[in-house]
């Protein structure tokens, strides 16, 4: 029961934070709302017994990624980093209608599916803890792990190529 209450609470917080994040004028404020959203998601992860991921969520997303955002906003003084003068309100309204339609489609899809997955007898001990994640990571998921290292390499090199100092 407490689980349910916590879930509803943080679900509401997450939705409000998300809505605020995409509606605020000032990108710094948006970023802070997004941090709030992600932290409440981390709480929900804990409720779902994904302890390690909840930690990573806070450290990587709230800690690193969003900090990077704020950093860039400050660096460039980007209070209004506007992309073009696209003010076609009619089209945007149509876009919003479409998103509502898409949400409705998701809802129909969920409703029409019996979502009883294979977890009848509770979770194994250690589920979602760092040890279990690490073990999987270095056995079954070793190939993606290697691959993601290359992906991060690309990101580093890319940042260097694009934003690095202009060398003559």
């Amino acid at each position, binding site marked *: 029961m407490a689980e349910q209450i916590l879930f509803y609470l943080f*679900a509401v917080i997450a*939705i409000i934070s*998300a809505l605020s*994040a*995409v*509606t605020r004028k000032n*990108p710094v404020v*948006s*970023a802070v709302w*997004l941090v709030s959203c*992600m932290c409440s*998601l981390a709480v*929900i*992860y804990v409720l*779902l017994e*994904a302890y*390690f*991921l909840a930690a990573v*969520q806070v450290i*990587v*997303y709230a800690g690193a*990624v969003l900090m*990077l*955002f704020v950093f*860039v*906003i400050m*660096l460039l003084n980007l209070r209004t*980093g*506007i*992309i*073009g*003068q696209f003010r076609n309100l009619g089209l*945007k309204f149509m876009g919003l209608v479409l*998103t*509502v339609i*898409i*949400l409705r489609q*998701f*809802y129909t899809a*969920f409703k029409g599916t019996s*979502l009883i*997955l*294979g*977890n009848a*007898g*509770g*979770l194994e001990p250690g589920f*979602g803890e760092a040890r*279990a994640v690490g073990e*999987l*990571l270095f056995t079954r*998921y070793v190939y*993606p792990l290697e691959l993601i290292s290359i*992906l*991060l390499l690309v*990101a*580093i090199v*890319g940042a260097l*190529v694009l*934003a690095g100092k202009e060398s003559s």
Partner: protein
Amino acid sequence: MISLHQLLLLSAVLFVIGIAGFITRRNIIIMFMSVELMLNAANLALISFANHSGSMDAQLIALFVMALAAAEVAVGLAIIITVFRNKQTVNVDELNILKW
């Protein structure tokens, strides 16, 4: 146990908020943050599935998505920086040279 329907609905709502933000906001940074929101929604769905199926695979996928999001942010912000570096020379309000 929180029902999967509720979890998925929360995830879908967050995902759709991300879409809405992406298509309505003109600020590049906020558009980009909306994409992050979409990725988080996907992660929430994955972790819910993990919990309800008792298999950790989905958590691993979510972990990879996080790493990937970090890489994407690095590249994306670098691109944004390049664009705004040229702001001094090019009018960035008209970031619309390429069309038709």
